[in-house]
């Protein structure tokens, strides 16, 4: 009966053809020895499953989870690369949506060929992204919270406005790190925080000679924003739509920046 031996496991796993399975079933019916083998394999399988299930209860080392939580998410620094592919795709999609969909008011009376006309602004911004990122060989994508002092110096120099990392722990937010963005052809400091539920809140800062005199609220693309100005910069706090505490966060940040 050794010819069936190896097939017994495949039989257990439902990996035999109907014909082969029928053969095994017939052989099992007439061969108590084979049946015993099958039962011992099944018992072994049950034991293995229990042992494997037991492994799931092993304590996951905190350091391992922390290493993943703190890991940079894009390509390693020093690789000359502008924003990630996902960023590009989403941005490209946004531009396509602009060209195809809305923006009628904007394009009306401006150009008969909106699709061509929209391209230069987009390309200019691409160039701006590239220009700024390319000069940031060390800080291409993200700098971790453990280099807070460095982030402040680096972003202040890059943005042209003093960047301070506000302590938002009273608002339940933990500082995770910073990125440098480009918007409207200007560098933007982006400080990333997460709350207890790992939701991200970003504080962005852009230099301007005419800062907003007051606070403003907006909801755009499923994100709530609170905007304000101070000194020589405008600030915006961005978070999930409807989280409700952005005002308080903005007030707390505004008192510290």
């Amino acid at each position, binding site marked *: 009966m050794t010819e069936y031996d190896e097939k017994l496991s495949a039989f257990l796993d439902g990996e035999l053809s109907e014909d082969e399975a029928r053969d095994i079933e017939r052989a099992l019916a007439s061969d108590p020895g084979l049946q015993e083998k099958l039962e011992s394999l099944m018992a072994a399988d049950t034991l293995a499953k229990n042992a*494997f299930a037991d492994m799931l209860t092993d304590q996951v080392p905190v350091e391992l989870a922390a290493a993943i939580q703190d890991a940079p998410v*894009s390509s*390693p620094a020093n690789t000359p690369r502008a924003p990630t*592919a996902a960023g590009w795709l989403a941005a490209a999609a946004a531009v396509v949506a602009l060209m195809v969909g809305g*923006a009628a008011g904007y394009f009306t009376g401006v150009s008969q060929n909106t699709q061509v006309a929209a391209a230069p602004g987009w390309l200019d911004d691409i160039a701006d992204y590239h220009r700024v990122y390319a000069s940031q060989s060390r800080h291409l994508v993200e700098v971790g919270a453990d280099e807070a002092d460095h982030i402040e110096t680096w972003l202040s120099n890059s943005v042209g406005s003093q960047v301070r990392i506000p302590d938002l722990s009273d608002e339940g937010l933990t500082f995770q790190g910073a990125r440098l963005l480009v918007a409207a052809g200007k560098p933007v400091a982006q400080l990333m925080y997460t709350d207890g539920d790992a939701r991200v809140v970003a504080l962005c800062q852009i230099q301007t000679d005419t800062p907003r005199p007051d606070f403003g609220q907006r909801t755009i693309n499923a994100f709530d924003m609170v905007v304000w100005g101070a000194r020589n910069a405008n600030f915006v706090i961005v978070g999930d739509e409807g989280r409700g505490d952005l005002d308080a966060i903005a007030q707390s940040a505004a008192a510290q920046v």
Partner: protein
Amino acid sequence: MEFVLKSADHWEAGCIAQADAPLTRHTLDLFIADIREFFLSNELKRDLIALLPRLRRFARSLTRSATEADDLVQEACLRALSRHDQWDPTQPLDRWMFRITRNLWISEIRKRQVRLGQGQVDAEDATELVSPETGEDTLAARELRRHIEALPEDLSAILLTVSVEGYSYAEAAELFDIPIGTVMSRIHRARKSLAQLIAEPVGAKT
């Protein structure tokens, strides 16, 4: 016709956006896309951390060493995060991660072979358990775990993927880069080895 955004105020105007101000809106969309990407990668981190127990189990079945398993898992997660744009969220994360983990382990084994100047014993030839633990006279769960982890190369990992993780033989063959027939024989050898353990506990052999 000037489309270049020149002033920070345009960007700021985008923040207090008017729907009819597309010049600033598309810049803002760029900015939001960047934040969204951060959200997505944060989700990936959260999902990876949730997957850690199963990833560690799989890595352990490959490496048969707790320390090496954790190193391997960490390396695999960092690899996944650095390539998060390659992840198709419609596909199961566990399968993607098992593949990355397995590939990293294979390349680690190859590096070791080069360093040591010797080949790995093929699982078909490696009939001995790697480090059979003895001393227990009952088939305690701990002993069984040791036995499973001591199974020769790939046997316990293949058993895990098929018997527990629900891979078909064809899927396991693809993951481990071996023929389906080899999956079948290795699964069988793994179970037979465990069945022998039940019939004749390891401690009783010595």
